[in-house]
């Protein structure tokens, strides 16, 4: 569904992505992990067309994304830190994005209901707490039933109840055959969500394999243990 071919990105002298290749299929739930500054966000932003790679191409359903912005109809994005025009209310922000998207397909308002946003639709964005803003971001990402969901640190800042609601939602959507990208530093949280792991280091993809295979190879039971095992083994070598 998404094919990343030989993507490199340079910011000045600093090379953030080095010849990255990645192929993703529908139904995968991919955890994108790696240390700070390894290029995770740059990779995500390249897929979204916010960062324009120095070289290489990204194909979405076989089409190069550089020439066409319509592919973003099929992407829902939840940023790490959402910020919206201060004086708009939650309802206005949702209406605005609906208006901009202008989709005819059915809307998925399940998260809006689950987060009880309907009760606070008239609150201004500037008066919302960080967690509530994240709830709005999450609701917007899922609202248009996109085929691909890109979630940047989705549960950071959410209360445990809301985080659980969001996780359930991610699992349901994934089961429907949607492709989901998650970046997170909380490995334990990803355990029951993801089907695949992509580990990035210094702008390069170290490996991309399914969670079951990873656990089998490292002989561990949880994702966190498997990754630490791998990193430690590298360190020793």
């Amino acid at each position: 569904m998404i094919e990343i071919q030989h993507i490199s990105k340079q910011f000045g002298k600093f090379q953030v992505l080095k010849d990255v290749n990645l192929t993703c299929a529908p139904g995968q739930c991919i955890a994108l992990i790696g240390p700070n500054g390894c290029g995770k966000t740059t990779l995500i932003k390249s897929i979204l067309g916010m960062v324009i790679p120095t070289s290489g191409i990204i194909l979405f359903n076989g089409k190069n994304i550089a020439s066409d912005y319509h592919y973003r109809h099929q992407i829902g994005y939840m940023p790490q830190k959402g910020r919206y025009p201060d004086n708009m209310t939650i309802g206005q922000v949702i209406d605005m994005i609906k208006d901009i998207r202008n989709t005819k397909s059915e809307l998925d308002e399940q998260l809006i209901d689950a987060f009880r946003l309907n009760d606070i639709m008239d609150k201004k964005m500037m008066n919302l707490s960080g967690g509530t803003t994240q709830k709005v971001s999450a609701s917007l990402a899922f609202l248009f039933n996109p085929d691909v969901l890109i979630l940047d640190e989705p549960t950071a800042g959410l209360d445990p109840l809301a985080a659980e609601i969001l996780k359930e939602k991610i699992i349901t959507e994934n089961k429907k055959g949607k492709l989901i990208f998650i970046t997170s530093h909380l490995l334990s949280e990803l355990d029951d969500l993801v089907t695949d792991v992509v580990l990035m280091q210094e702008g390069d993809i170290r490996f991309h394999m399914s969670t079951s295979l990873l656990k089998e190879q490292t002989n561990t039971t949880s994702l966190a243990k498997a990754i630490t095992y791998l990193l430690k083994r590298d360190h020793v070598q």
Partner: protein
Amino acid sequence: MFNKIQKFILFDILKNRIVIAYTLLLAVLAWSVFSLEDDSNKGVLTLLNIVLLTTPLVSIIFTTIYLYNSAEFIELLLSQPVRRSKIWAGLFLGLFFSLALSFLIGAGIPILLFVPGKTAFILLVMGILITAIFVSLGSLCTILARDKARGIGIAILLWLYFSLLFDGLVLFLLFQFADYPIEKAMVGVSALNPIDLARIFIILQLDVSAMLGYTGAIFKDFFGMGFGAIIGFLLLCMWVIIPFLISLRKFVKKDL
């Protein structure tokens, strides 16, 4: 889609406290100027100086700060299926319409009430053009500097340059080359500063241009005629279009 972004930005800004304060400030200044002066021509001159100082300052600083504060929101818009140029044009037009509207409400109403026809019209057009020019320059500042503090610094310097430093430089040149016939060259030099262009336009409307001396006569000769006025107007439009197009080109290729 183009209209949608601009519409939402407009509604957001119109509720902004700074813009409301700016509208009130203009209204208070304009009403008091016209109430104090018996001669509406004198009133126009006083108001002109106030408008040419505050409108550029508020437009450029507000635009710069608003765009920096909208960084995350611009990211969200970029993740939607919208062309990049539409987002930037929407932001620009939203800012321009809201600031122009507060100028029209704040200064426009008293001007229309106290000043006779043609002068009022030119004063309003100039106010709107100056707003557009400095919104455009503010957009350029934001795109040139990634760092917020530096961007606002550039914006303040630009305002300082156009409102104060430029006139100082021109005065300096005038004294240095006083022995040469530079009156015609001054017409060209004035094109380098939109604030001066707007000022000349309005002063020439008021029949006080005699006070400008021989240079004023040359100005009157050039800008007072149909052809010169059109050139002056086009120059002001270029001051809107060129900075905006540069910022647009950069925005389309920018990494966010």
